[in-house]
């Protein structure tokens, strides 16, 4: 399973920023790391933890498959992954071209994604070129 390992560095930045949150009791949030399916994953006892008020778990693992290759892929990886990983794309069934257009518009208008018009068009074209009933292969 190929993944976007470069994304980790970006996430590291996000995670560091998130530590200045003023939300009550929130000590760490949005800490992600590359998932490791083949590694030893038994729970590590927390007996080294302090008997204080801090309750922690490890980083959230990422298991993001590769997107289809093609023009616009970098824009999708850039803009869409600001808010979510591209598993939101690969998880979907093949969706009609009009639905992908509506999804991109929803991200911009409803969720406030700040994507320039030209980039939005290229992103929509990429999704339609690889993820419709007629085009989806992987």
């Amino acid at each position: 399973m190929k993944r976007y390992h470069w994304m980790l560095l970006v996430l590291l930045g996000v995670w560091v920023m998130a530590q200045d949150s003023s939300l009550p009791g929130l000590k760490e949030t949005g800490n992600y790391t590359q998932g490791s399916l083949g590694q030893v994953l038994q729970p590590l006892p927390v007996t080294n933890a302090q008997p204080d008020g801090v309750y922690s778990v490890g980083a959230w693992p990422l298991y993001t498959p590769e997107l289809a290759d093609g023009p616009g892929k970098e824009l999708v990886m850039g803009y869409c992954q600001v808010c979510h990983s591209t598993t939101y794309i690969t998880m979907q069934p093949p969706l009609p071209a009009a639905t992908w257009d509506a999804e991109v518009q929803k991200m911009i208008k409803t969720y406030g994604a700040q994507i320039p018009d030209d980039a939005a068009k290229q992103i929509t074209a990429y999704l339609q070129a690889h993820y419709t009933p007629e085009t989806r292969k992987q």
Partner: protein
Amino acid sequence: MDNPMHRRNFLQRAAGVLAAAGMLPWVKAQTSSQTAEALPSFTGPGPNPYWNGVNPFVVYPQKLPLLRLTDRGIQLETPRQYFRTAFTPNEAFFVRYHLDLIPNSIDLSSWRLNVEGNVEKPLTLSMQDLLTRFKPVSVAAVNQCSGNSRSRFQPRVAGGQWGNGAMGNAIWTGVRLMDLLQEAGVKPGTVQLQFQGLDRGPGPEGKGSNAFIKSLDWNDPVLQECIVAYRMNGEPLPMLNGFPVRLVVPGKFSTYWMKHLTWIRALTKPDDNFWMATAYRIPDTPRGNTTPADIAAGKVKTVPIGNVNMPVRSFIVDPDGSSKLVAGLPVEIRGVAFSGYGRVTKVEVSLDGGKTWRVAQLGDYHGPYSFRTWSFQWKPTQPGRYTLAVRATDEKGNVQPDEPVWNPGGYLWNRIERQDVVVGTAS
């Protein structure tokens, strides 16, 4: 015991292995390890034919391997086999976040549950306060995603492509929501209660991508049943299920069961945030049913999904169709059933795809909002192909229908479930 091939085997293997060492090409097997053939990594445009979604097993903190829908935000589906019992293990309980800033660490020395807004006396309660100043109560209740089984929809709709595993049942223990509100003193003019947790997203302030916020009407009777839960199946909540406390809204879909609950606000105006005004809305029709044409024509009135309870459902856990059954070998058909409208009073099984029905045996009753297990002993005598089906009836007389439902959100699926099985010969 006479197997001369085995001596041959050893020598041939040794020769073969030695010859191969270091010189054979890289072989990449694409076969799934679970089955004879690999499943595709998605389904569609037809309905997903599998019980769960088609997704890989992944491991998360405090969790057994679950099925990954998305990894940032995190959406994890519970495998079918965990629904054999009335209560779903915490480690197997499904996970559904909307945004990606999910707490990894919470400090209870500074965390406080805030009851604020249109109240006489705003409260700022520590976990210690919740544990010592309010009476603990417990309820067994199913937590089910509004979009559970969304991958069944035709035509398919965008969204989390859940199979049937976006649900779980637990004993939730905590304090009554109304006990907290009584102490705060909700003032006249309150129309809704708003709930918000510690999770956030990177989107602009005021947008749905910044915070997930839900509200319930102040006159909704479900408020009397709500619990602010600090305990799940006898243990603290896993982080991914809402540590330190989450709202439990028995009978309602889990979109209202706010995780990491930190703010309860009495509102004097209806909540018009994205997650109430735009998302999680259903057609104001029987079963929330509509058509793509009516939606396109813009003539469908919608209401929040909280206006309804979860419709009655039932599920076949065993047999799962992944192995053949044996003619003459009895098999226990079994699973769970529940309804947001109250006690499941009857579960029926069909061995002929829904033509005829026979009453199944019900398991222990754990309260009106809980899973109820059911079982049916079947001895298939003839080899062949069978389509099993199950349907439940609740105390209000609601019976699972055999018609699909469609709406653009992919909500409220409760069609009768089927399971194809093959019975082989015994000799």
